[in-house]
């Protein structure tokens, strides 16, 4: 029997076992697998493929929303977090282009999206804006934003703070647990609020002040040398002129990391002062660096690009892990959900997890824990107790 026929048989077995196989069928399957090592190998390859496909559940916002016909029609990639041409290996792209040329394959969204100047995120973005009642001065400042049927159902507000400095007092923005909000300020700076976060914004002629009251926020600061942008979080402040950075409050300390440009980190009173003093006395963070401030000191650290992208995955309302411990992963999910993951078996704390998840879709993650990592999940009120599954 040639390898193609072996593969076809293996696929038939997989489809049959995916139903409710009878005892007789299982026996026959065992016999088939034992006949030839190549049978077992072909089956294992397809079974691995089949299991990997379970990961697409990560794109569902929750486990109980109704079936979306767009998905069935092949519009899965509208939920994608990144432009398609960044996602696929070049070889695959050209392969797709080949098949398009020869019209051999069904034309799908996949092929459409390979056009070199693909702007589909922007067009989706535009359609969202037209639904919004907020006036927009410009869209050039805004990154292409993968707004989708899923994302649109989340809280995404585009606020415009007209003449805020003339109004006076600061304006407060906040998100609840699992929430997300993007705010565009009058100076065209943008703030993105992660789950359970709050900022107070006050723009004055001399300084742009934001207080991070709780949670985490990402700042895209519009360049303005005469009006520094100062973010304070407890006893730590960050000062920028034009840059992109993230600030997160963690108990008594504050974590800052810089995606683009430079910022100064220090005590609020110091950063408020003007002049050259800043340059010598205050730690300066550049792109790719992070600072952990608290307990009277500031620790600087270099962050690899990949890790930076992971830390900022929340901007796409996603969480990305790569060999992170279950303890860290659970802590991340717990920021976004009222139901809290609790590691009841200490052996699990160091289990390494990788993957890309929607933080509000806790059920999808639980599925993966159960199916891929041998973890059992026992609900207990608002808590989900994680224990090692018994191996059968």
């Amino acid at each position: 029997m040639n390898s193609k026929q072996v593969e076809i048989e293996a696929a038939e077995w997989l489809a049959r076992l995916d139903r409710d196989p009878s005892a007789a069928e299982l026996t026959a399957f065992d016999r088939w697998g034992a006949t030839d090592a190549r049978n077992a190998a072909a089956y294992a390859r397809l079974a691995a493929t089949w299991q990997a496909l379970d990961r697409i559940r990560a794109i569902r916002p929750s486990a109980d929303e109704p079936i979306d016909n767009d998905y069935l029609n092949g519009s899965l990639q509208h939920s994608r977090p990144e432009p398609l041409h960044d996602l696929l290996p070049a070889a695959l792209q050209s392969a797709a282009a080949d098949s398009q040329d020869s019209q051999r394959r069904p034309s799908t969204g996949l092929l459409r999206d390979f056009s070199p100047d693909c702007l589909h995120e922007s067009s989706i973005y535009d359609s969202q804006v037209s639904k919004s009642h907020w006036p927009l001065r410009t869209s050039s400042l805004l990154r292409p934003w993968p707004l989708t049927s899923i994302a649109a159902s989340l809280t995404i507000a585009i606020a415009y703070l007209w003449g805020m400095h003339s109004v006076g007092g600061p304006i407060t923005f906040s998100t609840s647990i699992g929430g997300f909000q993007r705010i565009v300020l009058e100076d065209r700076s943008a703030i993105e609020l992660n789950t359970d976060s709050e900022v107070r914004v006050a723009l004055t002629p001399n300084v742009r002040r934001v207080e991070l009251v709780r949670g985490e926020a990402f700042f895209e600061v519009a360049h303005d040398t005469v009006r520094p942008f100062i973010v304070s979080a407890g006893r730590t402040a960050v000062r920028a002129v034009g840059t992109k950075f993230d600030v997160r409050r963690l108990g008594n300390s504050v974590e800052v990391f810089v995606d683009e440009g430079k910022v100064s980190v220090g005590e609020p009173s110091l950063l408020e002062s003007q002049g050259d003093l800043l340059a010598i006395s205050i730690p300066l963070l550049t792109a790719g660096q992070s600072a952990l401030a608290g307990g009277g000191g500031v620790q600087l650290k270099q962050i690899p690009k990949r890790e930076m992208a992971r830390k900022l995955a929340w901007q796409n309302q996603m969480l990305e892990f790569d060999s992170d411990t279950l303890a860290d992963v659970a802590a991340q999910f717990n920021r976004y959900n009222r139901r809290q993951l609790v590691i009841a078996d200490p052996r699990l704390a160091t289990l390494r997890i990788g993957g890309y998840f929607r933080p509000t879709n806790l059920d999808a993650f639980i599925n993966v824990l159960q199916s891929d990592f041998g973890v059992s999940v026992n609900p207990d009120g608002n808590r989900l107790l994680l224990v090692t599954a018994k191996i059968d």
Partner: protein
Amino acid sequence: MAARYPVNLIERNTWLAKDILVHERALRAYLGRFFKNVADVEDVLQDTYARLLSLNDSASTAVRNWHAFLFASARNVALDRIRKARVVSLDALAEMGSADVLDQTPSADETLNARQELGLLLDTIASLPARCREALTLRKLYGLSQREIAERLAISESTVEKHVAYGVRLCAERMFAKRGEPGKSDENNTLGRKGKSDEQ
């Protein structure tokens, strides 16, 4: 890079997909330099996977680098085949015997991060023929059983089963294999791979 050898079936599948099958495209390209006939490449791959999966525990825990081990195994399988059979020229045999398989380091294309992996899965599903795609989306995204899918799409259960069988093969091909023509027998396919060296 997870190099630990898996103990249970689910872990084994995860390991197979992440540490072995991701290299399949590169491995096919490598083997394609020595075999003109695609069916030969398919045979060597299947034999190679069979060898990998039948390793005993002590042998497999000794493997530090699965990528290198995979290519070395494939080369051994290929050499066996070449010695026994008639399919390749002596030049190819010489080349294969001398080529340093450890030079075949994984390229950036092969190692996908979690986000790229999700993108690839979504694209694969989206690229399936319509009915097949509907069935697999309902099965994998929504977790419907084959019976529920049959009811929803108003088709027979055996048709759903056929969609699943066909779909999983296409998915494996699109996710891991070099793209070929689905459904067409490779029996008489004498497509020369040497002319396609630009893929390497």
